[in-house]
Each structure stands twice: as C-alpha cells, then as structure tokens.
C-alpha cells in the first residue's frame, strides 16, 4: 500500500515539475501574484541588473530618499553575456525588475516581449534626449522600451607625443588617415597607426553609422535589412585595403597583446568611443597624459559626422508587478540632475540627457592634459548619427566575428564578409517568421 502511495506521490511531483517546465507562460512568482494593495503594506522592492561601476552608491542615494521604493543592485558582467542572461531569466519567469540594456540588444528584448512599454511614464522626459538617442529606445515605433542612460559617440584617440615624433599631422579625413598609416610603417616597421578588430562588431557598426549606414529600418509592418549597403561596403573595403597592404595591423582590441602594444607605444591611434579613457587608463597606464583626442576623420572634408559605439538604456521588465515604481526610479536615475551628476562622477559614463553637459566639468584624470575633453566630446556628440537596431543583432554580430576572422585569415575582401552578415541576418529573420520588405 505504502509503495503505491509513494509511487503516486512521485508521479504527481514529476508531472508538476514537467508541467511547470513545459508551459510557455511560466507560473507567476509569489511576489508577482501580490495585488497592488498588498504592495502598499510594505516598501516596493526592486532589483536592478547593471554593470555600471559604483551603481550601488548611486542607488543608496535613491533608497535614502524613497523609503517606499527600495532598489537592490545586482552587478552583472556586462556585454553580450549580460543580454543573454537577461533573456534567459525572462524566459524562465524570474527576471529582475530593471535591467541595463545596450541599445543594440534592446530590440531583441522587445522582440522577446521581455521589456515593458513605458510610453505613458516617459511622456514628460522625452524632450531631454536628442532625437537620435530617443530613436534607439523607440526603434522607430510608437512604443518606448527604455530610458537612455549613456551614449558612446566616437572620436579619434591618438598618441600626441608619437605623432610629433613621426611627424604626422592629425588626420582630418580617412584618406589622410590611410596616408598617415603608410607613413608610420615607413618610419618604423614595428609600429602601426591602428588596428582593425574582427572581434568588435560594435566598433564597426559605429564606423558604418558615421558613413551613413542604415542596417535596419521599419517601414509600416515590415523590417528592412540593409547591412550590405553602400556606406558599409565603403567602410569595409577601406579597412580591408589597409590591412591587406599591411598599413594597419589586424590584432583584435581588448587582448593582452593589444594592451601591450598600447602600453609600449606600438599602436598610435584608436577610433573609439567617449568611454575610452577608462579602458586606456587600465590597459595602458604607462601612456598617461600622452594621448589626445580629435574629431573622427571624415569621409568628405569639411563634414562633421561620427557614429556610436556602445551606450545603454535602462529598461523595465515586462514581468515586473511594479512597473510604475520601476519607471519612476529609471526616470530619476537618468534625468534627475543630482543622479546624473552621480552617474558622471561615480559611474564615469557620458550621460544621454542633454541637460547633463553642466555635470561634465573636469577632464578624465588620464587626459588631464586635454582640459577641453568634454567640450570635444559634446561637439562629437552633436554630429553623431545612429541607426535602428534589428531584432536579431546577436546573429549579425556573431556573423561579423566569424566572417571577418575568415576574411583576415584567407585575405578575402571585407565586403564579402559584409554580404555574409546581410545573408545570415535575413535568413535568421525569415526562419523566425519576421516580415521583411525586400
């Protein structure tokens, strides 16, 4: 008898587990099941996934001022892994209430129905952000899927001392940059003006944006995918040509080797985003005060365009029971003058809000010889153009790495790699059933 009962209990437990695993609508957590009146009995508790440094200190300020909405920071690793983790947590039914979402990942979050539409909650702050950045959180639709936090307009970082040593003028156009690259090789065969990284699709996207690329766009009820457009091919073949003739190096960014080259003055320039001082300070401590910044080289002399590399927004989970409180916190964090001030000082980011310019006073310590650092950044920001990211950036970026790795190895044209990105992206979207306008 008892054996039977045990067996039955086991069967029940098993089916329950299977059922909860199998259902596409996960069972709501006890917290989620609470009614709004229950929430009023105690403070609302929110969790926030972010990788911005010192965010816990900034959140402490909020928690002290808002005893009824308590936010807990959960520090994440950042990058693509953080996006994958959030999507998995959301699918499993227990995502955090708030999440830092890089602009290129936000469309995947929206497509997975993992983030809430904050249109009503953000109506009053829309005007505080530039149109370009706001477009990155609306994806060009009616919805608003996050609040912009920071942006990464690109500039040209260069070794001022070594430019002087080799007698190179700061390049104003990409043509001049190419000439300078060749000059450097002639003067010292151990030194390169720059390197092309096949591991950083974000940087390449920024370069393509500068040239006027529009990889994705939405027209009516369908997506347009145009990764292999003329501007992108132009950028790809420009770098491909330089790598092929040996004028620039092909080592990836953020490797021990790259750090060493930066530190030893074997790499003289880096087209990078406004957050680069932090990277340089850690990876090339020996070169402090030797770097300077200039506007990005242009495709046509006299223009003033640049692209974005990185930058993120704060999004609210579609599964949170406390959407209003979460939106309130996200709004405070990214628009309140005191909070933005803290973002600059503690988290060392370049805030998205246009009101932040006053918060940016002193140049980063690594660039103490460049007192106009933030003025330059702000000038770059004014000429920055972005594009709408698609719902499967993961596929596109992964294809970038594999295709450019291959192109470097087999010395094939970079524009072929661009075509692979286009084909893989479209194939993946078709497989999932997205409507694509041809």
């Amino acid at each position, binding site marked *: 008898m008892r054996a039977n009962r*045990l067996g039955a209990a086991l069967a029940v437990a098993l089916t329950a587990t299977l059922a909860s695993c199998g259902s596409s609508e996960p069972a709501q957590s006890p917290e989620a099941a609470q009614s709004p009146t229950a929430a009023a009995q105690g403070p609302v508790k929110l969790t926030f996934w972010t990788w911005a440094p010192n965010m816990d200190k900034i959140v402490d300020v909020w928690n002290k001022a808002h005893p009824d909405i308590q936010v807990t920071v959960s520090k994440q690793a950042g990058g693509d892994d953080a996006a994958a983790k959030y999507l998995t947590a959301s699918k499993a039914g227990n995502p955090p209430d708030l999440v830092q979402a890089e602009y290129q990942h936000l469309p995947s979050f929206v*497509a997975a129905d993992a983030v809430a539409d904050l249109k009503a909650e953000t109506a009053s702050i829309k005007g505080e952000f530039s149109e370009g950045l706001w477009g990155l959180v609306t994806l060009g639709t009616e919805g608003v899927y996050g609040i912009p936090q920071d942006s990464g307009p690109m500039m040209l970082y260069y070794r001022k001392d070594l430019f002087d040593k080799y007698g190179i003028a700061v390049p104003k156009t990409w043509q001049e940059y190419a000439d300078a690259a060749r000059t450097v090789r002639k003067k010292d065969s151990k030194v390169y003006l720059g390197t092309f990284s096949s591991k950083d699709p974000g940087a390449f996207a920024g370069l393509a944006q500068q040239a006027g690329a529009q990889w994705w766009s939405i027209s009516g009820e369908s997506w347009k995918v145009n990764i292999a457009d003329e501007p992108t091919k132009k950028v790809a073949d420009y770098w491909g040509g330089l790598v092929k003739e040996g004028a620039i190096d092909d080592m990836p960014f953020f*490797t021990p*080797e790259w750090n060493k080259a930066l530190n030893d003055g074997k790499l003289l320039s880096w087209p990078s985003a406004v957050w680069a001082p932090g990277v340089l300070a850690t990876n090339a401590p020996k070169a402090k005060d030797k770097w300077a910044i200039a506007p990005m080289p242009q495709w046509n002399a006299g223009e003033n365009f640049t692209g974005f590399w990185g930058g993120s927004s704060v999004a609210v989970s579609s599964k949170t029971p406390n959407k209003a409180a979460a939106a309130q916190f996200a709004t405070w964090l990214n628009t309140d003058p005191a909070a933005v001030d803290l973002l600059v000082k503690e988290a060392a980011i370049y805030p998205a809000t246009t009101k932040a310019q006053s918060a940016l006073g002193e140049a980063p310590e690594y660039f103490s010889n460049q007192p106009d650092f933030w003025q330059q950044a702000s000038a770059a920001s004014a000429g920055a153009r972005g594009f709408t990211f698609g719902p499967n950036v993961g596929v596109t970026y992964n294809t970038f790495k594999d295709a450019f790795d291959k192109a470097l*190895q087999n010395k094939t044209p970079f524009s072929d790699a661009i075509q692979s990105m286009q084909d893989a992206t479209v194939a993946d979207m078709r497989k999932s059933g997205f409507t694509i306008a041809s």
Partner: protein
Amino acid sequence: MKRSAPYLFLTPAIVLFTLFLAVPIGYTVYLAMRRTKVSGLGLGKGARREVFVGFDNFAAALSDAELWNGWLRVLGYGALVLVVMLGLALLFALLLDSARVRLAKFSRIAIFLPYAVPGVAATLMWGFLYLPSLSPIKDVLEVNFLGATAVTYSMANVAVWGGVGFNMLVLYTALRAIPRDLYEAARLDGASEVQIALRVKIPILTPAIILTTVFSIIATVQVFTEPSTLRPLTNTISSTWSPLMKVYRDAFVTGDLYSAAATSIVIAAISLVLSFGFLRVVRNRAFGEG
C-alpha cells in the same frame, strides 16, 4: 513494512535522478521539437509564439554543413589528443611502476598536478604563452602558435598537458593491483623489464586502458573550454569550431534555444555511438567474451 523498504531506500536516488537527469533531458527533447514563430515586426505582446515543429530542428542540425565541419575538426583534434595523452599516460605509469625509477613520489605528483588546474585557467595561461608578442617561446621557435594550422596542435597541447596526469593515475593504480609474483615468474623465465611491460603489464592493463579511452573520447567530443577560451585571442577559431560551441552560440548568442536543444541531442547520440562502438570493437580483447 518489509515490502516497502526497498522502495524507501530507492526514493532518494530516484528523486534525484528524476529531477536532475530525466526531467532536464525530457525538457531538452521537448524544446528540440519546438520553435518560435513571429508575425509581422515581432515587437510587443503576442507577436511571438511557440509552435510544435516535430523533427525540423533535428533535420536542420543534421544537414548543417558547419556542424559536420565542426565534427571533422574535433575528430582531428580528438585523434591527436587521444593518442598523445594516453600514450604518455601509459608510458609514465609504466615508468613509475618500474622498480628502478627515482623520485617516484615527486614525479607522480608533478605529472598529476596540471590536472588540478581548472581548464579555463590552464588555457588562459597557455594562451598567453602562445600570443606572438607576449610569448617567451616564440623567441626561440619561429612559430605562430595560433596560426591556422598550428592552432589545433596548440589546443591539443593544452588538453594533453591537463589530461595526462589523471589518466596516468588511473593506469598506475591498476598497475599496482597486479600481483608482484607475476613479474617474478616472468623474470625467472628470462624476460627483460621492457618485455615484462609489453607482454605482462599492458595485457593485464587492457580494461583500464579501455576505460580511460572511453572517458577521453567522451571528453574530446565535448571539447569546449579550450577553443572558446582561446577564441578571443586569435582569428583562427570560429564560433562554431566544435559542435558544443555551436550549441552555446545558438542558445546564448543568437538566442535560438530550440536548435541548440536539437543539436545537443545529436551530440549526445554521437558520443554514445562512438563510446559504445569503441567498446564493442574492443570487447573481445578486454573482457574475454566471445
């Protein structure tokens, strides 16, 4: 009371097995037969739903050229690792077991120690040694360790370095269990140490060798740590270099859990076939069956 006792004792094992093996496997099979279907722009609520697609994902996994290329790469890598690692392990075990070796205890620990280093740490360490501008070895040998052809050998080297110790220990333990009088008898018959090793020790060791081979086959089929840790350092390793890397990429980079589930079932099936196939081939020798 008496009749229920066995079930009672079995319960913990059954519960654990169910929760942590049977259910996840069942869920994987379930996922492998599904796929998300998007309509229109795929944005917002209700634009995305899960549908049942039967064996479509399996068909896609089996017809994916990149996955088979991955198998070929792993096959080459695996053959290299198996032969060198097990060969060295056997050699070291025999040397340590022979009466004449000095510093036996120290050598045993020294050979075993790399096994205690976590795979990621070991690969990073080797990766630093391989990087052209950092490598101290490169100054002596003019080789790019991360070049297109060398990279497989470089990865195999990491696996061999980490795996020899463990396999050596398994074989050595088996050697110690062999009664010493067998050697004495062989010696009285005029056998040299080498002959004893080849004709007495290795035949008796066969079951242990087979065991380590099966373990190693399973480990190489599932190779993941070495290539994915080295990948950021070089442009010669793609995101689908090994089948398991493709599973990781599908699940967590391109967000397609369903094909990842199907591919991992295919991988499990292939490693089962390889291990049991190997066992079948060697069964007669190992276990004297007929």
